[in-house]
């Protein structure tokens, strides 16, 4: 914990130290004509992604939660599927669908409308292309968040409006949406943070188009194609992005605090009222189906298609003949691929285990010892929640600074990547374990003490088994995220510590499209297997206990 705290404080300080010694970085950042587009791009990217993602998510959540749409369980599950696909891979998939010259959709459209041009009509390598892909990326998690608040709303609030003689449209506009306003606002702020720190999509799409946003600008400042890495510039940008994220997080917390005023969850069991769609059933179903096909299935199928082709080609009779799984066989001959899979496994394991151990410790102090440790418990909870709003790319950057000069030679090892990820995911982990631990009555642990058990036995025999479901969830969440994480790994890796995500990134940069797709499918399969395994374990546990 002490180690962690020291990491935290230096991490916070280091960018600021540089402000004292070299204020010129800020001058450079703020006056350079090259940086103005970066801010502008970041702004457009955030607004554009949200403008696409949130309305879609709200509409889908409303349709699936509050209307009598057919096959809702199917749609609800399908919407969540992209969460298992790393955003790096969905960017790759969309490039293959919307590349201006040989993207599948463009080729098909040109054929269908007899267009003569070689390119278009769509160009993914633009700011709008980035917004589109990022916007779709937001839908699953935004859907989860918004559907939950639709679900939790007391239907009697709406029924009251109906009794007052309002129709469905009036009720929705005048009661439902205003009640949900805090939840929607909170989601908005939260996803602004997500978009600003998003690296994979602007990194991949903006690389070709040379469109930089804040997060990718930091990366390119430290990984310049020409000349030395400019760490001063990078940290100046890092502080700016960190400041923006902190400000937004503060706003987010204010919003969610005031949400209590709109307490819509009463703990009563009820089924929300469902609106009959009548004549709108067919269009609504078609809309959901289109979304599922277009945004969920198509990118995944495209990735699969690319992975079974020796080189990239649009699907046709001719290229169908070339389908082979050689790519899957050949890839294992590449030593660095095997190493990257091994490294990824190690990092995922180390990160999730370390996160669980630290999260358990943090929440144990926060929940059980709040009274005796007072200020310390508060400090601890704040410090462990803070990385939630520190963008991954900034954590990566900070870790370079801290550990290059660190007495223990961690820099350049796998462990520094695992440590950076642990720092990042501890916020989620400790939040999950804290709420789980609060459900466990303190007397259960005290009873073990009274039975003569030392605290080690109490934790092992009582606390951990009681928290097992929450711990398994944290393990899976962290492991999957660590496997798919790109930006921190990219900042901290070297040829020895290459992981699957950085491997895909460099394959893509070097034009090895098919290999990147193969490795991508392998990564998706690994994540899916992990999730399925976790699901089975919790199923078995539930069966055993009943």
């Amino acid at each position, binding site marked *: 914990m002490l180690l962690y705290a020291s990491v935290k404080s230096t991490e916070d300080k280091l960018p600021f130290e540089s402000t004292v010694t070299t204020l010129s970085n800020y001058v450079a950042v703020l006056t350079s004509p090259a940086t103005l587009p970066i801010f502008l791009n970041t702004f457009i990217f955030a607004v554009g992604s949200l403008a696409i993602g949130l309305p879609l998510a709200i509409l889908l959540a409303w349709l699936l939660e509050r209307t009598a749409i057919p096959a809702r369980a199917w749609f609800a599950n399908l919407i969540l599927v992209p969460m298992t696909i790393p955003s790096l891979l969905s960017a790759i998939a969309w490039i293959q669908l919307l590349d201006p010259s040989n993207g599948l959709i463009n080729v098909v459209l040109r054929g269908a409308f007899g267009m003569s041009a070689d390119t278009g009509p769509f160009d993914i390598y633009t700011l709008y292309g980035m917004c589109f892909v990022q916007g779709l990326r937001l839908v699953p998690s935004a859907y989860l968040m918004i559907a939950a608040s639709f679900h939790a709303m007391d239907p009697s609030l709406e029924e009251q409006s109906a009794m007052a003689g309002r129709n469905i449209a009036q009720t929705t506009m005048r009661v439902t949406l205003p009640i949900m306003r805090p939840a929607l606002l909170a989601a908005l702020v939260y996803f602004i943070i997500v978009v600003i720190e998003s690296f994979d999509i602007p990194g991949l799409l903006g690389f070709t188009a040379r469109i930089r946003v804040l997060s990718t600008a930091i990366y390119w400042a430290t990984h310049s194609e020409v000349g030395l890495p400019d760490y001063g510039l990078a940290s100046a940008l890092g502080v700016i992005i960190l400041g923006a994220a902190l400000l937004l997080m503060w706003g987010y917390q204010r919003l969610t605090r005031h949400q209590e005023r709109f307490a819509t969850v009463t703990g009563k069991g009820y089924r929300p009222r469902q609106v009959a769609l009548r004549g709108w059933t067919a269009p609504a179903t078609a809309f959901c189906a289109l979304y599922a096909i277009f945004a969920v299935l198509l990118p995944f199928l495209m990735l699969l298609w690319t992975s079974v082709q020796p080189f990239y080609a649009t699907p046709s009779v001719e290229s169908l003949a070339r389908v082979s799984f050689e790519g899957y066989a050949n890839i294992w001959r590449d030593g660095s691929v095997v190493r990257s899979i091994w490294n990824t496994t190690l990092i995922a394991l180390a990160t999730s285990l370390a996160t669980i151990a630290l999260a358990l410790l943090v929440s144990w102090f926060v929940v059980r010892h709040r*009274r*005796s440790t*007072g200020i310390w418990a508060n400090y601890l909870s704040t410090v462990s929640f803070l990385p939630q709003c520190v963008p991954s790319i900034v954590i990566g950057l900070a870790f370079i600074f801290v550990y290059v000069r660190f007495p223990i030679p961690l820099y350049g090892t796998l462990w520094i990547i695992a440590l950076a990820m642990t720092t990042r995911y501890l916020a989620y982990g400790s939040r999950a374990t804290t709420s789980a631990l609060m459900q466990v*009555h303190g*007397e*259960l642990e*005290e*009873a*073990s*003490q*009274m*039975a*003569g*058990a*030392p*605290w080690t036995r109490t934790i092992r*025999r*009582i606390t951990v*088994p*009681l928290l*097992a479901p929450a711990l398994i969830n944290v393990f899976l969440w962290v492991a999957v995220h660590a496997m798919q994480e790109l930006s921190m790994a990219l900042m901290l890796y070297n040829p020895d510590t290459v992981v699957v995500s950085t491997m895909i990134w460099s394959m893509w940069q070097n034009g090895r499209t098919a290999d990147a797709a193969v490795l991508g499918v392998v990564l998706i399969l690994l994540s899916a297997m992990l999730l399925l395994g976790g699901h089975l374990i919790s199923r078995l546990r539930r069966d055993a*206990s009943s």
Partner: protein
Amino acid sequence: MRLREAKPVIAVKNLVKIFAGARGQVRALNNISFEVGRGELFTLLGPSGCGKTTTLRCIAGLEQPAAGEILINDRAVYRAVDGTFVAPEQRQIGMVFQSYAIWPHMTVFQNVAYPLTGGSRNDVGKRVSGILERLSLGNLSDRLAPNLSGGQQQRVALARALVAQPEILLLDEPLSNLDAKLREQMRFELKALQESFAITTVYVTHDQEEALALSDRIGLMHEGDLIEVGSPADLYLRPAHKITAEFLGTSNFIPAQVESAGVTSSDELLVQSPIGRFVALRSAEWQEGQAALLFFRPENVEFISEKDPPHNGNNAASGIVERVTFLGNSADVVIRSGETTLRVRAHPARAPVSGEEVSFYVGPNSCIAFPA
């Protein structure tokens, strides 16, 4: 009441506990001192928030006091002066929690076997089944905790507290989670069990009936102070403090003035109240003319005919019946006498009717004068 041996098993001396609350510090325990003898059942009784559970948790070692001393068999488990603090797991105390704290991921057998470490499997099995038999839980040993009824959970918690044969048993409101009927039944079972194990027990409750029925001695607590300690009969019949009288049973309090500090015998005195002169037991040193509070219980009031007032007219008064509430085994009568309202417990068949004028008498031994 059991005869107490010279050496107490538990001795609590000048215990102070301070909680750091949101609005500054709260003194949860204020110089608490008491002793519990071998095999005794000692109850800490008081309203919620009076510090009784905190005292129990200090004995268990689950709370760290701010000052004072706790001795178990003459050995300090906590002493503020030299910083002695024995961890709860090393105090060898059995405890039953208010929530029972049965571990839901273990069977009844595993729960009860938990305190037994070391010893062969066979030995552990024998001891666990022994105690389960004794608490009539033998047929439930493979059940998981969530599949037990409230009464069964309480027994499992007891079995777990007793299996390692501790010398001390701490019970934190063990009956409060049971429904009324079961609570009454378990009250007697608990007492019988405690006696057959002859285990020194500290019992915490806010239920006065429970405390009166179970305890050898009761310590009455109020806002962090231990008000007084005594046998159930002492505390109920002859409370030394107004707080005790108020908390246990129902009371009548009438403002009065001391007329004479010594009347018939040395521990009686004469007070003048708005409803008449009363001979009462004293609870402190008195000066003539001092303000006092005359106390007696509704059940000690007798109705009399006006013709033969006893005691030269002392301890008798009259008034008008304002309301009669029929309660089945008794009737609750409210009498107004001048400005004073009194509650009287009457036999249901001999209760007066509303509006009737009645005279009544309260024996000197049932009256106590408290400092106002």
